[in-house]
């Protein structure tokens, strides 16, 4: 972007007669561009808008032909119904989701940093084999491990327990892979200086290596949080009782038990989806950085 700004200012300084009409033409040419972008924009925003507007409509109005854009009689009835519904303790489900997300992100960040540091800065027997094994597990998709993992959880009696969701995600091969690359760029002199000053290896890791990794850890953390919060398939398999479920599963359950009540379902969708969406939009910059840096979802 900066390079473009420079070229533009420098070309303005060169006295060329053809410059002005060309600029005006540029504005005219960029008009359809903005129109096209705005078209795409409204295609993106319209479903969100529809969700919010529908949540203020009555269940009858939602089914009306032709559909209304703005609600005829905006009502908070849907929201009131959800808040007064004893079978839908939203805070509890938020708690479930938050527990799983924070616990998983916390453990994977710690293990990824530790193991990544180990692979980057230490030499030991079998290191190559171990790292190769990690790379292999990275390529194995969940649908392969899902069935035996489920069988293990049933034997451990961890079905319907939030702990069942956590134990298989304590180590994240991808996080290890990424943090190893960051750890490799840490200067060895820094670590050796700490060693000479008498720091133990764990102190070096906790006090020197971890703070250096804060930027990639933040990126990995927000990506992991998003993945955990929106996870659907595995939580659906593990959590079969209603009261232990996480938000996405609750939302589909609510939808299937309230068919034909479009306004109510949209209100539930707003309440379950929107708060975290806003948080994620706020952290969007980091997420984009994470995606472009890693190329993984």
């Amino acid at each position, binding site marked *: *972007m900066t390079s473009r700004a420079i070229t533009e200012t420098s070309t303005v300084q060169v006295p060329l007669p053809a410059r002005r009409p060309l600029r005006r033409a540029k504005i005219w040419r960029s008009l359809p561009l903005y129109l096209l972008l705005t078209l795409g924009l409204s*295609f993106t925003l319209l479903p969100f808008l529809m*969700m919010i507007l529908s949540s203020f409509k009555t269940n009858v109005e939602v089914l009306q032909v032709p559909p209304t854009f703005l609600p005829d009689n905006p009502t908070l009835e849907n929201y009131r119904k959800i808040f007064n519904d004893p079978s839908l303790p939203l805070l509890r489900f938020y708690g479930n989701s938050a527990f799983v997300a924070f616990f998983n992100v916390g453990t994977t960040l710690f293990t990824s940093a530790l193991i990544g540091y180990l692979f980057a800065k230490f030499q030991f027997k079998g290191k190559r084999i*171990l790292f190769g094994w990690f790379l292999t597990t990275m390529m194995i998709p969940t*649908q392969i491990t899902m069935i035996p993992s489920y069988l293990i959880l049933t034997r451990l009696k961890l079905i319907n327990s939030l702990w069942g969701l956590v134990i298989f995600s304590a180590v994240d091969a991808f996080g290890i892979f990424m943090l190893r690359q960051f750890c490799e760029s840490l200067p060895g002199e820094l670590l050796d200086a700490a060693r000479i000053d008498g720091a133990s290896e764990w102190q070096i890791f906790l006090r020197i290596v971890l703070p250096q990794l804060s930027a990639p850890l933040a990126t990995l953390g927000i990506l992991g949080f998003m993945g955990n*919060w929106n996870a659907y398939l595995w939580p659906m398999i593990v959590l079969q009782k209603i009261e232990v479920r996480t938000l996405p599963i609750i939302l589909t359950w609510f*939808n299937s038990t309230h068919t034909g009540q*479009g306004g109510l379902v949209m209100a539930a969708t707003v309440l379950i989806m929107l708060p975290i969406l806003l948080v994620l939009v706020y952290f969007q910059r980091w997420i984009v950085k994470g995606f472009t840096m890693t190329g993984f*979802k």
Partner: protein
Amino acid sequence: MRPSLSFCKNLLAERWRHGMLRIFRKREKRSGGGLAAAKGRFVLSVTIPLLLYESLGIFVLAWAFILMFYNYSSGRLGGPILGLGGSNPFVGIQNFIQMIKGTSVQANLFRTSLKNTLIFAFAVLPLNLVITLPLAYLLESIGERFKVLYRTIYFMPVLTSSVGVALIWMSMYDPQGGWINAIIRFFGGQPVAWLSDPRAGFLGISVAMWAVILAYLWQDYGYNMVIFIAALQAIPQGLKDAALIDGATPWKVFTKITIQLIRPTLLFVCVMTMLSSFQVFDIIQVMTNGDPGNRTQVLMLDIYKNAFRYQRLGWAAAESFVLFLIVMVVTLIQMRLLRTEWEY
């Protein structure tokens, strides 16, 4: 505290520490210095729990591999070891033979699911590229402030939970009050029962499949867009300016310079999109659950239903192995292509 401690106690502690140090020093000599020993202990303290945890992973993988050669159901007790054998008999590669030429309902459904998965993936990929690449290119050429705003909004569906996306689109597709049918009616067309009509189709693909493809695209295009934008930003502006001054049309600049320079990214995006659409589950499970008439039954959905609804875990394991093979082949092709791309 310190000064009040008895001298004797201090002395004892000192002697004890001294003795321990001697023992340690002996060990250190063998392992080559104190720092090396400390490092070794650190490595062990991390690798031992790690190996234990990873052996759980190996166990899971081995179990997955064994299961696909069994007619295994979690409803039956089976043999003594992991419930294998007995009422859960070993069937060898019978599961795979069934998939290829079996005539049972589940074998037919597997082939339908495979076909639907391929349709889904091969429809999503070109549509996604047709939307994302031009949009990213256009977005690259506007002012910085607008760019951030547009990108933020285009990126919002990526951040949304796919269940939410599915529910929003379900209400958009509602045959009565849905907006899609309202638009169709506005232009004088016949309303369509998008998610429940098994006969209606377009280009040989059922409308339900198109409906889930559209919802999936809506959620996914922001992802590829930001990847493309990052790649486009890396292209030096001077190259494009030089071509423009030499009289190239913007279209030529796009095809001859931009596309050529982002080819590795393009390939990468193709493969990632392909992989994630082969494994599509959430949106379809919520929106149609495979209906109408199995028109949207994809492989992941079939695996899920077989394993957790019909308790046919052996069969499901075999199916997931097939899906894994497809994913693997696509990944290997990608790695091959990317390697040759990077060499020039």
